[in-house]
């Protein structure tokens, strides 16, 4: 049925073919040869004219299938319409009704799998560059000063939000707008979670994140850094002693997985978390101006094929590596990373070794990495994820000449909070079990969302979980439901 209606829309909207622009307007980027020498942002963003022109490409189709693809349910056609009229202040206000971190999402959302995937225009041509327009509107606001947002009258209820990543910040922002006092507890010395320690500066400038955080503070959110919940107060103590009426846990996927192969503790082997945290959070790329060091050799192998792997491989080049390899046990089509990141990585000279996985890391007498022994793989039957399972080819061992290895094969939930909270049910892998619709956990008054529930996923999915939880916390605090008990 959908298809029929869409065809109708397309025929009516396509009448005026003269105004139809089939391709997205390009966004200027730093040239690869230049950008691999710096940590400045790769994608430079639209200017006002281009943003408005791109917005004018939107057909404003009544069904707005794009909205289906947005985990936080932004009213996409509405903000695009305002942007097309150059009412960017109106556009950002519209976005912010649903999205607390638009400058972040405009940069790091995998739009091709979300809003833009469903765009009507995208069926025949390029979809509208929704993410780029969002980014322009958000950056313009950061530049011109925030549009004040409406906040409901104070309810007198206090909510503790554990973790200041995308899930926590979104939850806190929504709670604040609903009139609740949200206090965010962050273990590190700065708010933002993975937006600060994980995603590189060249993809998401840290100043942008901090400006977004400052804007959220204006909603009345209190952010406490250097506060490790579970080591300072536990979740139980927050509720029993400190008077919080509810708690949201959004502590993310902060536990790095290793391959569990021989040699993995050798010097020169990093978890992606460490590699990126040193570089992004601690600014090791500015060493010795900043005190935290990092060591990158001539040839770097990054294990894994997701966004974190791409970020690590590109970071390695910028830190001076001569060669940076993605070593992935499946093939190109299975790479889980965002398309743009794969493209950018290739443009920058990152090389790929598909159907390859290491068996051990070789090192010298000083315990420094000297190489990596790998096995070749071939694709077999489809596995549970629907992707063809990589099968090792017996006797295909070979050695890759590398001196640095970054393990980017995924992260699990950090066990600190689950372990110290009474009555909180977790899965075998340690993820908190929470209702996907409400974020309610097995413990009354405690909600959870983001990577700590779902396992490592995207910024926007975490934000979606944060806002669902905020809504159900609101309902819980208003006594409208007892589903949590």
């Amino acid at each position: 049925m959908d298809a029929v209606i869409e065809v109708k829309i397309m025929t009516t909207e396509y009448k005026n073919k003269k105004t139809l622009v089939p391709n997205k307007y390009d966004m200027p980027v730093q040239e690869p040869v230049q950008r691999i020498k710096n940590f400045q942002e790769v994608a430079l963003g639209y200017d006002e004219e281009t943003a408005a022109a791109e917005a004018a490409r939107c057909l404003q189709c009544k069904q707005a299938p794009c909205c289906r693809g947005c985990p936080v349910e932004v009213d996409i056609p509405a903000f695009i319409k305002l942007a097309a009229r150059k009412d960017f202040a109106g556009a950002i206000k519209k976005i912010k009704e649903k999205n607390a971190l638009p400058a972040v999402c405009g940069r790091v959302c995998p739009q091709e799998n979300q809003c833009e995937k469903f765009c009507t225009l995208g069926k025949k041509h390029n979809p509208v560059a929704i993410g780029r327009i969002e980014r322009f509107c958000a950056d313009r606001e950061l530049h011109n000063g925030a549009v004040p947002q409406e906040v409901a009258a104070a309810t007198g209820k206090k909510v503790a939000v554990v973790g200041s990543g995308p899930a926590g910040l979104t939850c806190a922002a929504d709670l604040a707008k609903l009139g609740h006092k949200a206090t965010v507890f962050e273990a590190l010395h700065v708010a933002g979670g993975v937006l600060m320690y994980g995603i590189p500066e060249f993809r998401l400038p840290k100043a942008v994140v901090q400006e977004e955080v400052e804007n959220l503070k204006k909603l009345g959110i209190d952010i406490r850094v250097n506060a490790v919940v579970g080591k300072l107060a536990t979740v139980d103590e927050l509720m029993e002693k400190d008077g919080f009426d509810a708690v949201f846990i959004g502590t993310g996927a902060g536990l790095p997985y290793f391959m569990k192969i021989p040699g993995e503790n050798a010097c020169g082997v990093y978890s992606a978390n460490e590699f990126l945290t040193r570089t992004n959070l601690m600014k090791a790329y500015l060493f010795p101006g900043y005190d935290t060091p990092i060591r990158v050799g001539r040839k770097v192998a990054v294990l894994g094929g997701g966004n974190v792997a791409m970020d690590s491989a590109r970071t390695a080049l910028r830190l001076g590596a001569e060669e940076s390899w993605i070593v992935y046990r499946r093939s190109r089509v299975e790479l889980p990373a965002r398309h743009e990141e794969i493209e950018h990585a290739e443009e920058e000279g990152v090389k790929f070794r598909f159907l390859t996985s290491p068996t051990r890391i070789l090192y010298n007498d000083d315990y420094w990495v000297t190489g990596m022994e790998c096995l070749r793989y071939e694709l077999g039957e489809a596995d549970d994820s629907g992707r063809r399972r990589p099968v090792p080819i017996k006797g295909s061992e070979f050695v890759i000449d590398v001196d640095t290895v970054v393990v980017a094969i995924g992260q699990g939930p950090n066990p600190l909070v689950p372990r110290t909270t009474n009555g909180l049910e977790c899965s075998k892998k340690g993820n908190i079990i929470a209702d996907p619709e409400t974020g309610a956990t097995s413990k009354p008054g405690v909600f959870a969302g983001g990577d700590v529930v779902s396992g490592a996923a995207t910024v926007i999915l975490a934000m979606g979980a944060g806002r669902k939880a905020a809504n159900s916390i609101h309902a819980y605090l208003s006594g409208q439901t007892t589903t949590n008990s």
Partner: protein
Amino acid sequence: MYRINRKEVLAPSVNLFEIKAPAVAEKARPGQFVILRVDSEGERIPLTIADFDREKGAITCVFQEVGKTTRVLGALNEGDSVKDFVGPLGEPSRIEYYGHIVCVGGGVGVAPVYPIARALKEAGNKVTGIIGARTGELVFWEDKMRAACSELRVTTDDGSYAGKGFVTDVLTEVIKESNDIVLCIAIGPLPMMRAVCNLTREYGLKTVVSLNSIMVDGTGMCGSCRVTVGGETKFACVDGPEFDGHQVDFAEMARRALIYKPQEKLSLERYLNESEHQCGCSHRGENNDNRVQK
């Protein structure tokens, strides 16, 4: 910002800071550590908690000036502040009744051993303390340790104060004298902890060590601090810092401790050059930055 309430120079280049952090002091227990950052360009460094005062809301840390960061820190004074201070991190020591315990502190390791010895004695244990230093002027907290232990022995490598010899020499004596020792706790430089473990292994004496490996976040997020214990990879920050010393792969630890040696050297040289320049007579009085006070 976290204020330095009190500073005490315990020995040349060994400083004590009492830092105001009421929330941390409220929860701190012997064996845990904190991570601090001096300023916004600073690195995060772990320091084992040497004492805590819940009433005053303060944590005591003792550190030796070695690289740039500890020197910058050492140049701070009472009333100054550090930018970030987070804790208490890691698992606390297991304080319970064991019987007769030996607590060995080497160098600045005396500081973290102190609250553990005190708590163990309070839990009814007989605690024999051994403290050692390279030379007499580096011995500190002798009185505090004497009060915290049932018995205390002091030694210096060069014999310039108290007995002459390594802590392992004294430990051998203690083990030979008494046949009721059930546990040894050893904190100090890596080679010392390794030597203690080699010795106690011969006697089948269970030994706990506290590992201070290179860390970034200190909450189990980065894996920088990974150590091999009993053939398994552990994170010193969340699984430790205390481990069964007989299971620790000290050789691996020693090599991992050197990962950033060239950068540490560069950083220190750069800092010393800057300090020298800024402290030169022509600049005296112009620069009140406490980072460069000598």
